[in-house]
């Protein structure tokens, strides 16, 4: 079976499915067949467009899309109406994909650093020169410092698995991804409560509390879209957020909670549910572990106590707990995604997970869903070698209580590289990830880079990370590549598979990272591990899904009709007690709090300072799309959100320049006076204040989040803690 899917679609079939599909895919679907309405005047000239299926690569959601190609140019990206996970939509970023493809700022050929780091002097190399150099440098570091002397940092991309595979066969355990700056604390908390990380069945929920998440701006499919659909069907949304996000704006209730105190709120919710006996006792007896201990534990956490901690009135907490329990099990505390906020984030999320457990919503409609069967298979690859001279473990091993073996912690890895202990790391390979902008404490990242002998970056544009590298290799955008298949979980929407074939040939001299790694492997005596083609790889991935080839060709997506609810019926939970752990035995054994204990904040905000919080908007994917011409127009620079009252005291006017400083760095940006933020909190968007002059739209604009944020971490998971930074704000020119 050949799995190369020809994704071009004839116009006739395009019309056929675009007509048939939308009605099925879109809630309240409108029939898009417009033949009767078609404009019958003068026909446009030029050749007929071609249509190709692909999957969006502007963020991690991989929304199905249809690319229109006219005379060899991608002129438009539209949603694939058959793609259920995104509910047949494409967001602003997805629509701006053409601007990534045709960005004049794209990297065009291999570049070697000539001047000092960050000076921006480059020499153009041929691919052979570049690959020979990279192979030589990596081999040398491997020989001198062991194979673990190279750190690999792939971003979220459909080809990142080949960077992991290369690291494995090269012999380094030191691989970090974006995850330790993002969601590890949530994963930790849910694994340690339910034994797995859930998907939220937002669509069928009747009551959702969203804390530490901003689903209408930070788009996750299908949750963001399902949230609106659910609300239209009567689901109530309560948002806790120190700032008035668009999610807060559209919620039924918004509470500007004191940052970092969410645990108190959820312990109080648990208190009410337990003490008013609002849970299902039979369910609790069968499924929950440690309810008696929890009952005792939350006695002191009354709504009246919590109100003083979190700034939410006790009667509201009590009422919300009652409303939530009344809607259970089709009710949830939304688990969230980026939870890299506080030093006790895992325990905060544990408090939320425990409240969910009491709602009995696991594996049920409107609750938290277990992973479904997608059906893709890991390809059979040759056995990776073992290097006996390697150190026993990762560089960051043991630096937090319960780390994820494959993820580690970027922060702790960085500290270890700077210290040169427990062993030196002298090489860094990054692929489509931008830690210089996204990881707290930029100065430390620069310090870490100073310790390196060789840094290689593969990316589409000259990100700040590429700007600091020794060798920069140009990668094509997602529209110019052949990719492996990707299995996706879409909550109640679907379990599905997508893939990519080139919509247009790669521009300039750009080469996919798969090709780069295969070339490197060939130069380093590792060719046997990269002797497969992308077609063969994909064929292996799909070998158990015989219908997938046809579905991918005809619909751009394959669905696995696997079981959605009741997966756990008759099964044990993957926890130590084999039940849902309100009380975590492993934590107890390790001397950690087996149930979340509310402790004072690491640092209170002094009256002349602010807590800085960060968060997404719908236009930018973390620190990657700010320079995109189409998206940049929606937000040309970032601003500092500050409440008018403290602004007045500091003499700051709307649009005036302020200097923002912390213990780790400082930046200058314009103030935006907003009543929709607490008086003790400030906020800024990410991705500005760049170092790279190769990002022409954003260079010289706004301030850099990573420069201001201090690098605290979650004690349990080693995840970054990005809301622990206390900042000073001053009007520029004020003494």
């Amino acid at each position, binding site marked *: 079976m050949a799995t190369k899917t020809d994704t071009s679609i004839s116009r006739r079939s395009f019309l056929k499915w*675009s007509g048939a599909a939308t009605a099925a895919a879109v*809630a309240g679907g409108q029939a898009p067949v417009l033949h009767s*309405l078609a404009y019958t*005047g003068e026909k446009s000239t030029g050749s007929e467009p071609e249509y190709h299926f692909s999957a969006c690569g502007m963020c991690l959601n991989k929304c199905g899309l249809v690319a229109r190609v006219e005379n060899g140019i991608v002129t438009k990206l539209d949603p694939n109406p058959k793609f259920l996970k995104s509910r047949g*939509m494409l967001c602003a970023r997805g629509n701006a994909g053409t601007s990534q493809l045709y960005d004049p700022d794209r990297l065009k050929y291999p570049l070697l650093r000539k001047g000092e780091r960050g000076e921006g002097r480059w020499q153009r190399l041929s691919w052979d020169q570049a690959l020979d150099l990279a192979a030589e440098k990596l081999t040398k570091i491997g020989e001198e410092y062991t194979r673990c002397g190279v750190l690999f940092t792939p971003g979220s991309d459909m080809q990142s698995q080949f960077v992991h595979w290369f690291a494995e066969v090269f012999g380094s355990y030191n691989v970090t991804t974006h995850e330790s700056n993002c969601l590890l604390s949530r994963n930790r908390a849910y694994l340690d409560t339910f034994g797995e990380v859930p998907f939220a069945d937002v669509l069928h929920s009747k009551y959702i509390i969203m804390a530490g998440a901003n689903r209408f701006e930070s788009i996750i499919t299908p949750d*963001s879209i399902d949230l*609106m659909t659910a609300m239209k069907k009567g689901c109530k949304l309560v948002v806790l957020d120190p700032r*008035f996000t*668009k999610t807060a704006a559209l919620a039924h209730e918004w509470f500007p909670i004191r940052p970092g105190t969410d645990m108190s709120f959820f312990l109080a919710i648990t208190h009410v549910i337990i003490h008013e006996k609002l849970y299902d006792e039979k369910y609790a007896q069968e499924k929950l572990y440690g309810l008696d201990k929890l009952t005792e534990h939350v006695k002191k956490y009354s709504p009246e106590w919590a109100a003083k901690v979190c700034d939410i009135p006790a009667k509201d907490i009590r009422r919300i707990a009652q409303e939530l329990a009344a809607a259970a099990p089709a009710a949830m505390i939304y688990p969230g995604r980026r939870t890299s906020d506080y030093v006790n984030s895992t325990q905060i999320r544990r408090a939320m997970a425990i409240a969910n457990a009491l709602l009995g919503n696991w594996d049920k409609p409107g609750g938290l869903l277990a992973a479904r069967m997608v059906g893709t298979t890991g390809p059979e690859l040759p056995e990776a070698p073992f290097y006996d001279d390697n150190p026993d473990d990762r560089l960051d091993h043991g630096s937090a209580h319960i780390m994820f073996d494959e993820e580690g912690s970027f922060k702790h890895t960085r500290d270890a590289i700077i210290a040169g202990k427990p062993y030196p790391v002298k090489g860094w390979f990054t692929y489509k990830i931008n830690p210089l902008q996204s990881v707290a404490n930029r100065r430390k990242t620069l310090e870490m880079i100073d310790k390196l002998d060789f840094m290689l970056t593969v990316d589409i544009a000259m990100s700040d990370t590429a700007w600091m590298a020794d060798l920069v290799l140009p990668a094509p955008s997602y529209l110019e590549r052949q990719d492996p298949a990707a299995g996706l979980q879409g909550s109640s929407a679907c379990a599905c598979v997508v893939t990519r074939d080139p919509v247009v040939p790669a521009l300039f001299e750009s080469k996919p990272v798969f090709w780069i790694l295969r070339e490197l492997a060939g130069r380093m005596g590792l060719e046997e591990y990269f002797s497969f083609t992308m077609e063969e790889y994909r064929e292996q991935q799909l070998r158990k899904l015989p219908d997938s080839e046809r579905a991918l060709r005809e619909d751009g997506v394959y669905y696995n009709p696997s079981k959605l609810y009741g997966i756990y019926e008759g099964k044990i939970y993957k926890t130590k007690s084999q039940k849902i752990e309100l009380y975590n035995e492993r934590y107890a054994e390790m001397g950690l709090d087996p149930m979340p204990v509310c402790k004072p904040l690491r640092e209170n905000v002094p009256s002349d300072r602010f807590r800085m919080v960060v968060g997404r908007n719908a236009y930018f994917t973390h620190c990657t799309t700010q320079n995109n011409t189409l998206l940049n*127009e929606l937000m040309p620079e970032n601003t500092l959100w500050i409440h008018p009252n403290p602004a007045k005291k500091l003499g700051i006017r709307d649009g005036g320049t302020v200097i923002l400083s912390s213990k780790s760095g400082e930046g200058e940006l314009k103030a935006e006076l907003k009543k929709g933020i607490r008086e003790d909190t400030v906020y800024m968007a990410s991705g500005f204040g760049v170092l790279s002059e190769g990002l022409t739209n954003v260079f010289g604009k706004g301030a850099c989040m990573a420069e201001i944020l201090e690098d605290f971490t979650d004690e349990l998971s080693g995840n970054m803690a990005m809301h622990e930074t206390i900042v000073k704000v001053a009007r520029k020119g004020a003494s």
Partner: protein
Amino acid sequence: MKTQLAMVIDSSSCIDCKACMVSCKVENKVPGGYWRNWVKQREPRFGKIPGAKDPAAQAEGCRTWIIQAPDFDKVKGYGDPGSMHFQPGGCMHCANPACVQACPTGATYKDEKDGTVRLNDKLCIGCGCCIPACPYGARYRHPEKKIVDKCDFCAKRRERGELPACVITCPTKARTFGNINDPESDVARLVKENKTVRVVNEETDTEPNMYYVLTTAPMNWPRKAESPTPIRWWASLAKPLVWAVVGLNALGVLVMFGKQLIIKDEETEK
């Protein structure tokens, strides 16, 4: 009954992601700094809201304030004056379009076949009279093409049987599109099943073909259509003339003449 293409918008679904704006911009090659469509917003009013359920915050000494949107089941729309509201929009393809009246050359016209307000690029002299005439600011002077560009409900896409770019891409499907005169269409059904409102300036109701489900906000932004007096008589006089001249293949001369005349008019207006 004649076809009248229209858009019905449920603005309470809008999450202000701006997908419709970017999609439109790419589809219609709208230059940087300009838009054919938009998402407007009503700013929230913080603090104690009249009629809000429970503004009990201060009583308990919490530094908190609550914005409560009305319950969906009791909804009369997001009419609560305290809550933020997003409102997608664009050219409303009015039944009584002021821009058509203001156009001195007949470049802007109401398409007989589908009821859209269209622009004939070849006839447009870029005078810009239609710009102040539109109460919605839906027209802009294209910096390269030297014409006054506007939304055409994605005519080229419709030729191919595709939905307008802003409609197909919308995550929450806030925009619905179709023939309002066809009782079987989704737009007609929505208008029939719901109370709808149209955003108009009371002094110049151009009878827009954009309907908002239940209610929407902000409502007070359309301006009074303005069409300079000389233009009005010129337009009425010149339009038949222009068409005649087009027939005679002597458009260029008249365009030059018209351009001079109009530039003068614009200056006198200032």
